[in-house]
Protein backbone atom coordinates (compact mmCIF):
# COMPACT_ATOMS: atom_id res chain seq x y z
CA UNK A 1 0.00 0.00 0.00
CA UNK A 2 1.02 3.55 -0.40
CA UNK A 3 3.07 4.91 2.41
CA UNK A 4 1.23 7.67 4.21
CA UNK A 5 3.51 10.47 5.27
CA UNK A 6 1.67 12.70 7.67
CA UNK A 7 0.78 12.79 11.32
CA UNK A 8 -0.67 9.59 12.70
CA UNK A 9 -4.33 9.48 13.65
CA UNK A 10 -5.19 10.63 17.16
CA UNK A 11 -4.39 8.52 20.12
CA UNK A 12 -4.03 9.35 23.73
CA UNK A 13 -0.52 8.93 25.10
CA UNK A 14 -0.07 7.81 28.68
CA UNK A 15 3.33 7.75 30.31
CA UNK A 16 3.33 5.78 33.57
CA UNK A 17 6.44 6.01 35.75
CA UNK A 18 6.03 2.69 37.52
CA UNK A 19 4.93 -0.83 36.74
CA UNK A 20 2.18 -0.49 39.35
CA UNK A 21 0.76 2.53 37.52
CA UNK A 22 0.97 0.76 34.17
CA UNK A 23 -0.79 -2.25 35.72
CA UNK A 24 -3.63 -0.04 36.98
CA UNK A 25 -4.05 1.53 33.55
CA UNK A 26 -4.12 -1.81 31.79
CA UNK A 27 -6.52 -3.37 34.24
CA UNK A 28 -9.02 -0.60 33.58
CA UNK A 29 -9.09 -0.87 29.78
CA UNK A 30 -6.85 -3.66 28.43
CA UNK A 31 -8.50 -3.94 25.02
CA UNK A 32 -8.02 -0.41 23.77
CA UNK A 33 -4.42 -0.02 24.80
CA UNK A 34 -1.25 -0.40 22.75
CA UNK A 35 1.97 -0.88 24.69
CA UNK A 36 4.94 0.93 23.28
CA UNK A 37 8.58 0.56 24.27
CA UNK A 38 11.02 1.76 21.58
CA UNK A 39 8.14 1.95 19.12
CA UNK A 40 10.09 0.51 16.21
CA UNK A 41 7.58 -2.20 15.53
CA UNK A 42 4.61 -0.13 16.65
CA UNK A 43 5.04 2.90 14.42
CA UNK A 44 4.46 1.05 11.14
CA UNK A 45 1.15 -0.25 12.42
CA UNK A 46 0.03 3.15 13.63
CA UNK A 47 1.32 5.13 10.66
CA UNK A 48 -0.25 2.75 8.18
CA UNK A 49 -3.60 3.05 10.02
CA UNK A 50 -3.80 -0.70 10.39
CA UNK A 51 -3.92 -0.62 14.17
CA UNK A 52 -5.88 2.24 15.66
CA UNK A 53 -5.56 2.08 19.43
CA UNK A 54 -7.39 4.59 21.55
CA UNK A 55 -4.53 4.79 24.00
CA UNK A 56 -0.81 4.24 23.64
CA UNK A 57 1.08 3.47 26.83
CA UNK A 58 4.69 4.60 26.65
CA UNK A 59 6.53 2.15 28.87
CA UNK A 60 9.91 3.87 28.69
CA UNK A 61 9.36 5.90 31.83
CA UNK A 62 9.32 2.74 33.95
CA UNK A 63 12.91 2.68 35.15
CA UNK A 64 12.49 -0.52 37.15
CA UNK A 65 12.03 -2.36 33.85
CA UNK A 66 15.36 -1.22 32.39
CA UNK A 67 18.92 -2.46 32.86
CA UNK A 68 20.87 -5.65 33.39
CA UNK A 69 21.50 -6.99 36.89
CA UNK A 70 22.86 -10.13 38.49
CA UNK A 71 20.15 -12.68 39.27
CA UNK A 72 20.96 -15.90 41.15
CA UNK A 73 23.82 -17.44 39.17
CA UNK A 74 22.72 -15.64 36.03
CA UNK A 75 21.35 -12.27 34.97
CA UNK A 76 18.05 -10.46 34.74
CA UNK A 77 17.46 -8.09 31.83
CA UNK A 78 14.76 -5.47 32.07
CA UNK A 79 12.69 -5.62 28.87
CA UNK A 80 13.12 -1.89 28.29
CA UNK A 81 16.90 -2.28 27.99
CA UNK A 82 17.84 -1.10 24.52
CA UNK A 83 19.54 -3.52 22.17
CA UNK A 84 22.64 -1.29 22.22
CA UNK A 85 22.77 -1.57 26.00
CA UNK A 86 22.37 -5.35 25.77
CA UNK A 87 25.22 -5.51 23.24
CA UNK A 88 27.53 -3.46 25.45
CA UNK A 89 26.62 -4.84 28.86
CA UNK A 90 29.72 -6.28 30.56
CA UNK A 91 27.84 -9.19 32.17
CA UNK A 92 26.16 -10.14 28.90
CA UNK A 93 29.49 -9.93 27.09
CA UNK A 94 31.35 -11.93 29.71
CA UNK A 95 28.89 -14.81 30.15
CA UNK A 96 26.36 -14.75 27.33
CA UNK A 97 28.24 -13.38 24.35
CA UNK A 98 25.79 -15.08 22.00
CA UNK A 99 23.08 -12.63 23.06
CA UNK A 100 25.35 -9.67 22.58
CA UNK A 101 26.24 -11.00 19.14
CA UNK A 102 22.60 -11.55 18.18
CA UNK A 103 21.50 -8.10 19.37
CA UNK A 104 24.37 -6.43 17.51
CA UNK A 105 23.08 -7.93 14.25
CA UNK A 106 19.61 -6.39 14.59
CA UNK A 107 18.62 -3.67 12.13
CA UNK A 108 20.80 -0.52 12.32
CA UNK A 109 22.62 1.45 15.04
CA UNK A 110 19.78 3.95 15.48
CA UNK A 111 17.24 1.15 15.79
CA UNK A 112 19.41 -0.64 18.33
CA UNK A 113 19.77 2.61 20.28
CA UNK A 114 16.02 2.77 20.75
CA UNK A 115 14.55 -0.68 20.12
CA UNK A 116 14.25 -2.69 23.30
CA UNK A 117 14.92 -6.36 23.95
CA UNK A 118 11.35 -6.77 25.21
CA UNK A 119 10.02 -5.24 22.00
CA UNK A 120 12.38 -7.35 19.94
CA UNK A 121 10.98 -10.61 21.28
CA UNK A 122 7.39 -9.30 21.24
CA UNK A 123 7.42 -7.86 17.72
CA UNK A 124 4.92 -8.98 15.16
CA UNK A 125 5.79 -10.83 11.96
CA UNK A 126 6.99 -8.97 8.88
CA UNK A 127 4.87 -10.78 6.26
CA UNK A 128 4.11 -7.83 3.99
CA UNK A 129 0.63 -8.98 3.09
CA UNK A 130 -0.27 -9.05 6.75
CA UNK A 131 1.56 -5.83 7.56
CA UNK A 132 -0.05 -4.03 4.66
CA UNK A 133 -3.46 -4.72 6.10
CA UNK A 134 -4.58 -7.54 3.82
CA UNK A 135 -7.39 -9.49 5.43
CA UNK A 136 -5.38 -12.69 5.78
CA UNK A 137 -5.70 -15.52 8.30
CA UNK A 138 -3.39 -13.76 10.72
CA UNK A 139 -5.51 -10.62 10.46
CA UNK A 140 -8.64 -12.64 11.22
CA UNK A 141 -9.56 -13.35 7.60
CA UNK A 142 -9.78 -16.58 5.67
CA UNK A 143 -6.95 -16.56 3.13
CA UNK A 144 -3.16 -16.54 3.01
CA UNK A 145 -1.95 -14.22 0.28
CA UNK A 146 1.66 -15.40 0.56
CA UNK A 147 0.91 -19.06 0.02
CA UNK A 148 -0.57 -18.92 -3.48
CA UNK A 149 1.12 -19.78 -6.78
CA UNK A 150 1.96 -16.12 -7.30
CA UNK A 151 2.45 -15.12 -3.66
CA UNK A 152 5.77 -13.50 -2.81
CA UNK A 153 7.02 -15.89 -0.19
CA UNK A 154 10.78 -15.94 -0.44
CA UNK A 155 11.01 -14.87 3.21
CA UNK A 156 8.31 -17.19 4.53
CA UNK A 157 8.14 -20.41 6.53
CA UNK A 158 9.39 -23.89 5.70
CA UNK A 159 8.34 -25.44 8.99
CA UNK A 160 5.23 -25.69 11.11
CA UNK A 161 3.08 -23.57 8.78
CA UNK A 162 -0.64 -23.99 9.09
CA UNK A 163 -2.69 -21.75 6.82
CA UNK A 164 -0.45 -18.78 7.76
CA UNK A 165 3.15 -19.01 6.47
CA UNK A 166 4.60 -15.95 8.22
CA UNK A 167 7.85 -16.27 10.21
CA UNK A 168 9.22 -14.98 13.47
CA UNK A 169 11.60 -12.15 12.60
CA UNK A 170 13.47 -11.74 15.88
CA UNK A 171 17.25 -12.04 16.07
CA UNK A 172 17.42 -12.07 19.85
CA UNK A 173 14.73 -14.71 20.43
CA UNK A 174 16.71 -17.78 19.26
CA UNK A 175 19.67 -16.68 21.38
CA UNK A 176 17.43 -16.37 24.44
CA UNK A 177 15.95 -19.80 23.78
CA UNK A 178 19.43 -21.31 23.40
CA UNK A 179 20.31 -19.77 26.78
CA UNK A 180 17.16 -21.27 28.35
CA UNK A 181 15.91 -17.81 29.36
CA UNK A 182 12.76 -17.35 31.42
CA UNK A 183 10.27 -14.60 30.69
CA UNK A 184 8.39 -12.95 33.53
CA UNK A 185 4.94 -11.62 32.66
CA UNK A 186 2.73 -9.38 34.71
CA UNK A 187 -0.93 -10.20 34.12
CA UNK A 188 -4.13 -8.95 35.60
CA UNK A 189 -4.11 -12.04 37.83
CA UNK A 190 -0.54 -11.69 39.02
CA UNK A 191 2.87 -12.67 37.78
CA UNK A 192 3.92 -15.76 35.85
CA UNK A 193 7.24 -17.05 34.63
CA UNK A 194 7.58 -19.16 31.50
CA UNK A 195 10.34 -20.69 29.41
CA UNK A 196 11.45 -18.45 26.53
CA UNK A 197 10.28 -20.93 23.92
CA UNK A 198 6.78 -21.02 25.39
CA UNK A 199 6.47 -17.26 24.94
CA UNK A 200 6.06 -17.78 21.20
CA UNK A 201 3.06 -19.27 19.44
CA UNK A 202 2.70 -21.07 16.13
CA UNK A 203 -0.39 -20.73 13.93
CA UNK A 204 -1.79 -24.08 15.08
CA UNK A 205 -2.17 -22.63 18.56
CA UNK A 206 -3.04 -19.03 17.79
CA UNK A 207 -2.97 -17.80 14.23
CA UNK A 208 -3.48 -14.13 15.09
CA UNK A 209 -0.80 -13.75 17.79
CA UNK A 210 2.95 -14.33 17.76
CA UNK A 211 3.28 -14.43 21.54
CA UNK A 212 1.42 -15.65 24.54
CA UNK A 213 0.77 -12.07 25.72
CA UNK A 214 -2.90 -11.30 26.29
CA UNK A 215 -4.29 -7.76 26.22
CA UNK A 216 -3.10 -6.11 29.40
CA UNK A 217 -0.07 -8.38 29.90
CA UNK A 218 3.36 -6.83 30.32
CA UNK A 219 6.67 -8.58 29.89
CA UNK A 220 8.54 -7.40 32.99
CA UNK A 221 11.82 -9.33 33.00
CA UNK A 222 13.99 -11.71 31.02
CA UNK A 223 16.03 -13.99 33.25
CA UNK A 224 18.94 -16.02 32.02
CA UNK A 225 20.13 -18.80 34.34
CA UNK A 226 23.80 -19.61 34.82
CA UNK A 227 23.35 -23.05 33.24
CA UNK A 228 24.60 -22.13 29.78
CA UNK A 229 26.97 -19.31 30.68
CA UNK A 230 30.18 -19.48 28.68
CA UNK A 231 29.27 -22.65 26.88
CA UNK A 232 30.37 -23.00 23.27
CA UNK A 233 28.19 -20.51 21.40
CA UNK A 234 27.41 -20.10 17.74
CA UNK A 235 25.25 -17.38 16.19
CA UNK A 236 24.87 -16.68 12.52
CA UNK A 237 22.41 -14.48 10.67
CA UNK A 238 21.77 -14.63 6.94
CA UNK A 239 20.24 -11.53 5.38
CA UNK A 240 20.25 -9.72 2.04
CA UNK A 241 21.93 -6.48 3.15
CA UNK A 242 24.31 -6.23 6.05
CA UNK A 243 22.22 -3.54 7.73
CA UNK A 244 18.52 -3.13 8.42
CA UNK A 245 17.45 -6.44 6.99
CA UNK A 246 15.57 -9.00 9.00
CA UNK A 247 17.03 -12.48 9.06
CA UNK A 248 16.16 -14.74 6.15
CA UNK A 249 17.26 -17.20 8.77
CA UNK A 250 19.46 -17.15 11.82
CA UNK A 251 20.71 -19.81 14.19
CA UNK A 252 21.69 -19.72 17.83
CA UNK A 253 23.41 -22.67 19.50
CA UNK A 254 24.80 -23.28 22.96
CA UNK A 255 26.80 -26.46 23.43
CA UNK A 256 28.54 -27.95 26.43
CA UNK A 257 31.69 -29.75 25.47
CA UNK A 258 34.01 -32.27 26.97
CA UNK A 259 37.01 -32.12 24.71
CA UNK A 260 35.45 -32.34 21.28
CA UNK A 261 32.42 -34.28 22.52
CA UNK A 262 29.07 -32.53 22.83
CA UNK A 263 27.66 -33.31 26.26
CA UNK A 264 24.57 -31.11 25.99
CA UNK A 265 23.14 -28.59 23.52
CA UNK A 266 20.34 -26.13 22.87
CA UNK A 267 19.63 -24.75 19.43
CA UNK A 268 17.01 -22.54 17.78
CA UNK A 269 16.48 -20.78 14.47
CA UNK A 270 14.31 -17.83 13.43
CA UNK A 271 13.01 -17.25 9.94
CA UNK A 272 11.99 -20.89 9.49
CA UNK A 273 8.65 -21.00 11.29
CA UNK A 274 6.11 -18.68 12.85
CA UNK A 275 7.87 -18.99 16.15
CA UNK A 276 11.57 -19.23 16.87
CA UNK A 277 12.08 -22.90 16.16
CA UNK A 278 13.85 -24.95 18.78
CA UNK A 279 15.67 -27.95 17.35
CA UNK A 280 14.95 -30.47 20.09
CA UNK A 281 15.50 -33.53 17.87
CA UNK A 282 18.89 -32.22 16.83
CA UNK A 283 19.79 -31.45 20.43
CA UNK A 284 19.01 -35.05 21.40
CA UNK A 285 20.80 -36.56 18.41
CA UNK A 286 24.10 -34.73 18.87
CA UNK A 287 24.41 -35.38 22.60
CA UNK A 288 27.44 -37.58 23.18
CA UNK A 289 28.70 -37.14 19.62
CA UNK A 290 31.90 -35.61 18.40
CA UNK A 291 31.45 -32.04 17.11
CA UNK A 292 32.64 -32.87 13.62
CA UNK A 293 31.45 -32.58 10.06
CA UNK A 294 29.62 -35.92 10.07
CA UNK A 295 27.64 -35.04 13.18
CA UNK A 296 26.87 -31.60 11.76
CA UNK A 297 25.74 -33.00 8.45
CA UNK A 298 23.45 -35.60 10.01
CA UNK A 299 22.01 -32.95 12.32
CA UNK A 300 21.33 -30.68 9.34
CA UNK A 301 19.39 -33.45 7.60
CA UNK A 302 17.35 -34.12 10.72
CA UNK A 303 16.62 -30.42 11.21
CA UNK A 304 14.88 -30.09 7.85
CA UNK A 305 13.17 -33.49 7.91
CA UNK A 306 9.69 -31.99 8.05
CA UNK A 307 10.40 -28.90 5.95
CA UNK A 308 7.88 -28.00 3.25
CA UNK A 309 9.01 -25.31 0.83
CA UNK A 310 6.72 -22.74 -0.80
CA UNK A 311 7.12 -21.45 -4.35
CA UNK A 312 10.08 -19.16 -3.70
CA UNK A 313 11.72 -20.27 -0.48
CA UNK A 314 13.12 -23.73 -1.18
CA UNK A 315 16.60 -22.24 -0.72
CA UNK A 316 15.85 -22.13 2.99
CA UNK A 317 16.17 -25.90 3.24
CA UNK A 318 19.87 -26.16 2.27
CA UNK A 319 20.39 -22.89 4.13
CA UNK A 320 19.04 -24.36 7.33
CA UNK A 321 21.01 -27.59 6.88
CA UNK A 322 24.18 -25.61 6.49
CA UNK A 323 23.49 -23.35 9.44
CA UNK A 324 22.94 -26.36 11.69
CA UNK A 325 26.08 -27.99 10.38
CA UNK A 326 28.14 -24.86 10.91
CA UNK A 327 26.75 -24.40 14.41
CA UNK A 328 27.99 -27.87 15.30
CA UNK A 329 31.22 -28.29 13.43
CA UNK A 330 32.25 -24.72 12.76
CA UNK A 331 32.83 -22.88 9.54
CA UNK A 332 35.06 -24.71 7.11
CA UNK A 333 36.58 -23.57 3.88
CA UNK A 334 33.77 -23.41 1.38
CA UNK A 335 33.55 -26.39 -0.91
CA UNK A 336 31.03 -26.47 -3.68
CA UNK A 337 28.64 -29.34 -3.84
CA UNK A 338 26.33 -29.61 -6.81
Amino acid at each position, binding site marked *: *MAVIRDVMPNFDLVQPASLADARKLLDSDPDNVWLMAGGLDSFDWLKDRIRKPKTVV*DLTGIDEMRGVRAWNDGIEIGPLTTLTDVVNDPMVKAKYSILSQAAELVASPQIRNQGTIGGNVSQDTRCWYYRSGWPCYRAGGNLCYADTPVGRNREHAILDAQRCVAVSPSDSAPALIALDAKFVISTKNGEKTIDAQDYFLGPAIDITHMTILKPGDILTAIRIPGTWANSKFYFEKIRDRNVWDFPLMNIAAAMKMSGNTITDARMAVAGAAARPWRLTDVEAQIKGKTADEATGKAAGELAVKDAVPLQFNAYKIPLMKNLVKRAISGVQEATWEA
Partner: protein
Amino acid sequence: MSDTPGLNILGNEPSNPGRRRFIQGVIASGVAVSAMQYRFMQTARGQSSAGAERLITLNVNGQTRRVGVLKQETLAWTLRYKLGLTATKLGCDRAECGACTVTLDDTAHYSCSVLTHTVRGKKVVTVEGLASPDGTLHPVQQGVIDEQGFQCAFCMSGFMMAAAAFLKKNPNPTRAEMAHGVSGNLCRCQDYDKILTALMKAAEHTRRANNVA
Protein backbone atom coordinates in the same frame (compact mmCIF):
# COMPACT_ATOMS: atom_id res chain seq x y z
CA MET B 1 -13.51 -7.73 10.44
CA SER B 2 -15.98 -5.72 8.45
CA ASP B 3 -18.60 -7.46 6.32
CA THR B 4 -16.76 -6.44 3.20
CA PRO B 5 -13.18 -7.37 3.88
CA GLY B 6 -12.13 -6.70 0.32
CA LEU B 7 -12.79 -3.03 0.76
CA ASN B 8 -10.94 -2.93 4.00
CA ILE B 9 -7.61 -3.82 2.50
CA LEU B 10 -6.04 -0.46 3.08
CA GLY B 11 -7.30 -0.29 6.62
CA ASN B 12 -9.62 2.57 5.74
CA GLU B 13 -13.27 2.78 6.51
CA PRO B 14 -15.01 0.29 4.25
CA SER B 15 -17.42 2.38 2.24
CA ASN B 16 -18.24 5.79 0.92
CA PRO B 17 -19.27 7.55 4.11
CA GLY B 18 -15.70 7.17 5.35
CA ARG B 19 -14.32 8.73 2.25
CA ARG B 20 -16.78 11.56 2.44
CA ARG B 21 -15.80 12.23 6.03
CA PHE B 22 -12.19 12.16 4.97
CA ILE B 23 -12.73 14.79 2.29
CA GLN B 24 -14.79 16.98 4.58
CA GLY B 25 -12.09 16.66 7.17
CA VAL B 26 -9.44 17.76 4.76
CA ILE B 27 -11.47 20.81 3.83
CA ALA B 28 -12.24 21.65 7.43
CA SER B 29 -8.71 21.36 8.67
CA GLY B 30 -7.52 23.20 5.58
CA VAL B 31 -9.34 26.20 7.02
CA ALA B 32 -7.61 25.61 10.29
CA VAL B 33 -4.22 25.54 8.62
CA SER B 34 -4.48 29.05 7.27
CA ALA B 35 -5.29 30.23 10.75
CA MET B 36 -2.08 28.86 12.15
CA GLN B 37 1.28 30.47 12.05
CA TYR B 38 3.15 27.39 10.93
CA ARG B 39 2.42 25.28 7.95
CA PHE B 40 0.67 22.28 9.30
CA MET B 41 -0.72 19.58 7.09
CA GLN B 42 -4.04 18.12 8.07
CA THR B 43 -4.07 14.61 9.37
CA ALA B 44 -5.89 12.02 7.33
CA ARG B 45 -9.27 10.93 8.67
CA GLY B 46 -9.95 14.58 9.20
CA GLN B 47 -9.30 15.19 12.84
CA SER B 48 -8.94 18.81 13.64
CA SER B 49 -5.57 18.59 15.26
CA ALA B 50 -5.06 21.95 16.88
CA GLY B 51 -7.23 21.25 19.90
CA ALA B 52 -5.27 18.21 20.96
CA GLU B 53 -1.94 19.97 21.14
CA ARG B 54 -0.23 20.26 24.48
CA LEU B 55 2.23 23.00 25.17
CA ILE B 56 5.48 21.38 26.25
CA THR B 57 9.04 22.50 26.84
CA LEU B 58 11.84 20.97 24.83
CA ASN B 59 15.58 21.40 24.95
CA VAL B 60 16.58 21.75 21.32
CA ASN B 61 20.06 22.76 20.25
CA GLY B 62 20.76 24.13 23.70
CA GLN B 63 17.69 26.36 23.68
CA THR B 64 14.51 26.02 25.65
CA ARG B 65 11.63 25.88 23.19
CA ARG B 66 7.95 25.97 24.08
CA VAL B 67 5.84 24.27 21.49
CA GLY B 68 2.34 22.84 21.08
CA VAL B 69 2.62 19.15 20.28
CA LEU B 70 0.07 16.46 19.44
CA LYS B 71 0.25 13.25 21.43
CA GLN B 72 0.87 11.28 18.25
CA GLU B 73 3.35 13.72 16.70
CA THR B 74 6.84 12.55 15.78
CA LEU B 75 9.92 14.53 16.63
CA ALA B 76 10.83 14.96 12.96
CA TRP B 77 7.48 16.63 12.42
CA THR B 78 7.86 18.95 15.39
CA LEU B 79 11.36 19.93 14.41
CA ARG B 80 10.55 20.64 10.80
CA TYR B 81 7.05 22.07 10.87
CA LYS B 82 6.79 23.64 14.30
CA LEU B 83 10.30 24.72 15.15
CA GLY B 84 11.44 25.53 11.63
CA LEU B 85 14.47 23.24 11.88
CA THR B 86 14.22 21.91 8.36
CA ALA B 87 17.75 20.56 8.06
CA THR B 88 16.39 17.34 9.51
CA LYS B 89 14.96 15.54 6.49
CA LEU B 90 12.08 13.15 6.27
CA GLY B 91 13.03 10.45 3.79
CA CYS B 92 11.07 7.25 4.38
CA ASP B 93 9.28 8.08 7.65
CA ARG B 94 9.74 4.38 8.51
CA ALA B 95 13.16 4.07 10.23
CA GLU B 96 14.62 2.74 7.00
CA CYS B 97 16.80 5.52 5.62
CA GLY B 98 18.44 7.64 8.32
CA ALA B 99 17.78 11.09 6.82
CA CYS B 100 15.94 12.20 9.97
CA THR B 101 18.72 11.24 12.40
CA VAL B 102 19.14 13.59 15.38
CA THR B 103 20.79 13.01 18.73
CA LEU B 104 18.92 12.57 21.99
CA ASP B 105 21.29 12.87 24.94
CA ASP B 106 24.17 12.32 22.50
CA THR B 107 22.75 9.10 21.05
CA ALA B 108 21.60 8.84 17.44
CA HIS B 109 17.89 8.26 16.85
CA TYR B 110 15.56 8.36 13.87
CA SER B 111 13.37 11.37 14.66
CA CYS B 112 10.63 10.01 12.39
CA SER B 113 10.21 7.21 14.89
CA VAL B 114 10.24 9.09 18.18
CA LEU B 115 7.16 10.66 19.74
CA THR B 116 7.93 14.25 20.63
CA HIS B 117 6.22 13.88 24.00
CA THR B 118 8.79 11.24 24.97
CA VAL B 119 11.81 13.53 24.59
CA ARG B 120 10.86 15.99 27.29
CA GLY B 121 13.87 16.30 29.58
CA LYS B 122 16.25 15.08 26.90
CA LYS B 123 18.85 17.10 25.05
CA VAL B 124 17.80 17.19 21.39
CA VAL B 125 20.44 18.22 18.86
CA THR B 126 19.88 18.66 15.13
CA VAL B 127 22.45 19.57 12.54
CA GLU B 128 21.55 23.24 13.10
CA GLY B 129 22.88 22.85 16.63
CA LEU B 130 26.21 21.23 15.84
CA ALA B 131 28.34 24.37 15.64
CA SER B 132 29.42 26.05 18.88
CA PRO B 133 27.57 29.20 19.94
CA ASP B 134 30.68 31.21 18.96
CA GLY B 135 30.36 29.90 15.42
CA THR B 136 33.20 27.38 15.55
CA LEU B 137 32.23 24.52 13.31
CA HIS B 138 31.82 21.02 14.71
CA PRO B 139 34.57 18.64 13.57
CA VAL B 140 32.01 16.77 11.46
CA GLN B 141 31.00 19.98 9.69
CA GLN B 142 34.65 20.85 9.12
CA GLY B 143 35.37 17.39 7.75
CA VAL B 144 32.46 17.60 5.33
CA ILE B 145 33.56 21.03 4.11
CA ASP B 146 37.17 19.92 3.72
CA GLU B 147 36.36 16.82 1.72
CA GLN B 148 33.07 17.85 0.07
CA GLY B 149 31.79 14.38 0.81
CA PHE B 150 28.20 14.65 -0.32
CA GLN B 151 26.58 14.79 -3.72
CA CYS B 152 22.89 15.80 -3.54
CA ALA B 153 23.18 15.96 0.28
CA PHE B 154 19.62 15.07 1.17
CA CYS B 155 21.06 12.42 3.48
CA MET B 156 23.78 14.72 4.79
CA SER B 157 22.21 16.03 8.00
CA GLY B 158 21.38 12.51 9.07
CA PHE B 159 24.86 11.24 8.32
CA MET B 160 26.40 14.15 10.18
CA MET B 161 24.33 13.55 13.29
CA ALA B 162 25.04 9.80 13.22
CA ALA B 163 28.75 10.55 12.81
CA ALA B 164 28.76 13.15 15.58
CA ALA B 165 27.19 10.66 18.00
CA PHE B 166 29.55 7.92 16.91
CA LEU B 167 32.68 10.08 17.22
CA LYS B 168 31.71 11.20 20.69
CA LYS B 169 32.17 7.60 21.85
CA ASN B 170 34.75 6.47 19.28
CA PRO B 171 37.04 9.36 18.37
CA ASN B 172 39.64 7.05 16.87
CA PRO B 173 37.82 4.75 14.47
CA THR B 174 39.19 2.78 11.55
CA ARG B 175 37.45 3.39 8.25
CA ALA B 176 35.56 0.12 8.69
CA GLU B 177 34.46 1.08 12.20
CA MET B 178 33.26 4.44 10.94
CA ALA B 179 31.33 2.70 8.18
CA HIS B 180 29.68 0.51 10.78
CA GLY B 181 28.97 3.55 12.94
CA VAL B 182 27.01 5.27 10.17
CA SER B 183 25.55 2.09 8.72
CA GLY B 184 22.07 3.23 9.72
CA ASN B 185 22.14 5.94 7.06
CA LEU B 186 21.54 5.50 3.36
CA CYS B 187 22.87 7.64 0.51
CA ARG B 188 20.89 7.24 -2.65
CA CYS B 189 23.63 8.84 -4.72
CA GLN B 190 25.82 5.93 -3.61
CA ASP B 191 28.47 8.39 -2.54
CA TYR B 192 29.63 6.30 0.40
CA ASP B 193 33.31 6.33 -0.34
CA LYS B 194 33.56 10.12 -0.37
CA ILE B 195 31.24 10.37 2.62
CA LEU B 196 33.52 8.08 4.57
CA THR B 197 36.55 10.11 3.57
CA ALA B 198 34.82 13.23 4.89
CA LEU B 199 33.83 11.50 8.12
CA MET B 200 37.35 10.16 8.66
CA LYS B 201 38.53 13.73 8.25
CA ALA B 202 35.94 14.61 10.87
CA ALA B 203 37.48 12.01 13.16
CA GLU B 204 40.85 13.66 12.68
CA HIS B 205 39.36 17.07 13.58
CA THR B 206 37.65 15.51 16.59
CA ARG B 207 40.93 14.14 17.94
CA ARG B 208 42.63 17.47 17.38
CA ALA B 209 39.82 19.29 19.19
CA ASN B 210 39.92 16.76 22.05
CA ASN B 211 43.68 17.24 22.43
CA VAL B 212 43.33 21.00 22.62
CA ALA B 213 40.53 20.80 25.18
